[in-house]
């Protein structure tokens, strides 16, 4: 029965290896909450997910024409954007969700840089950073209220805030038609 034994051993090793190397549950995000907890998929007006690979490609593609932008992207490992509109979700609900999310960042490795709880007619803005080895390695910007929009931008990687601020001044906010939209 050596064949049977051999086949059993093979199947056992497959099951063992399969369990060991399979992706299983998704790896934990550096945020202490799921993005879907903040904004439901169906309420999103803009959804952007850029990983290291694509960011690297963009960095290479823009190296000559915009070296500042290229250098900034080269250090990043991911960019995620979620924008929800109060047409889909009541404004106060969006404000409340963003407040709770910001509260959950506190004491979990995220340092608040800006926390503005503006009240009913103004906009709440939260800016948190995560540091590692003396560098900013994560940035979360959340806002809600104001014009009725609520949003989150989560950037991971080596972030130079000076460069980011300088570059941000030059960038236009409107997203070109058809981009960043949920399918």
């Amino acid at each position, binding site marked *: *029965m*050596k*064949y*049977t034994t*051999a*086949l059993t*051993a*093979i199947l056992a*090793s*497959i099951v063992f*290896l*399969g369990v060991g*190397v*399979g*992706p299983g549950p*998704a*790896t934990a995000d550096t945020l202490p909450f799921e993005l879907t907890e903040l904004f439901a998929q169906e309420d999103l007006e*803009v959804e*952007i997910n*850029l*990983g290291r*690979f*694509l*960011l690297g*490609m*963009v960095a290479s*593609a*823009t190296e000559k024409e915009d070296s500042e*932008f290229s250098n*900034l*992207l080269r250090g990043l490992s991911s*960019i995620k*954007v979620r*924008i929800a509109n109060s047409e889909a979700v009541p404004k106060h609900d969006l404000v409340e969700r963003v407040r709770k999310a910001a509260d959950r960042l506190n004491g979990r490795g995220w340092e608040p840089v*800006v926390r*503005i709880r*503006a009240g009913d007619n*103004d*906009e709440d*803005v939260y*800016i948190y950073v995560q540091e590692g080895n003396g560098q900013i390695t994560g*940035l979360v*910007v959340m*806002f809600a209220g*104001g014009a009725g929009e609520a*949003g989150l*931008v989560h*950037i991971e990687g080596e972030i130079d805030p000076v460069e*980011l*601020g300088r*570059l*941000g*001044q030059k*960038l*236009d*906010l409107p*997203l*070109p038609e058809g*981009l*960043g939209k949920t399918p």
Partner: protein
Amino acid sequence: MSRSTDGYDCDRVLELLELLVDDEVDATERVRIQDHMERCPSCARELSLARRIRNELRAMPQPELPPRLADDLPKVPETILAQASSPPTHTGRWAVVGSLAAVLVAAMLVLWTSPFDSSPQVVQQPTPSAQEIERAEAEARYALAQVAAASRRAGLELRDDVLGPHLVQPMTRNLTDSLRTVPNSDSTGDDA
């Protein structure tokens, strides 16, 4: 164990068993093995079992190649494909079993990772098209612009709602009050 006059014992026969099942022994060896089998029921049972397993394996439905694997196969270097398709150099049972296990484990890994696309670092990324890169660039610029815009709005709110009413205005009031009191004190001093 039985030993025939030509020197083929059970160990030697079992060593050649897989080649026999796969019709890869020459005619002389085949005759010698069959001679041995006629005298050795144990080896005959092994041969029968080996043939049955082979037939059952061949009767199994042919698995379909996952589309992504089919797409990726042309990218495999030709040297690797040549090695894979060259005849086996080891004739031992465990060499074949090991190869089979490796193939099955590789297939298992491919199938295991196929339905889940949540770990892009495991699977080789396809090269994005120029349009995809252009789109990603616009999205990255938009994300950075959102950060800058939110920072600006926060700055303005701080200026108007915090610094203005709680710092600048009180300081201005204090300064004005101070300036008002200065001439009075001077005049008082002069009067005195």
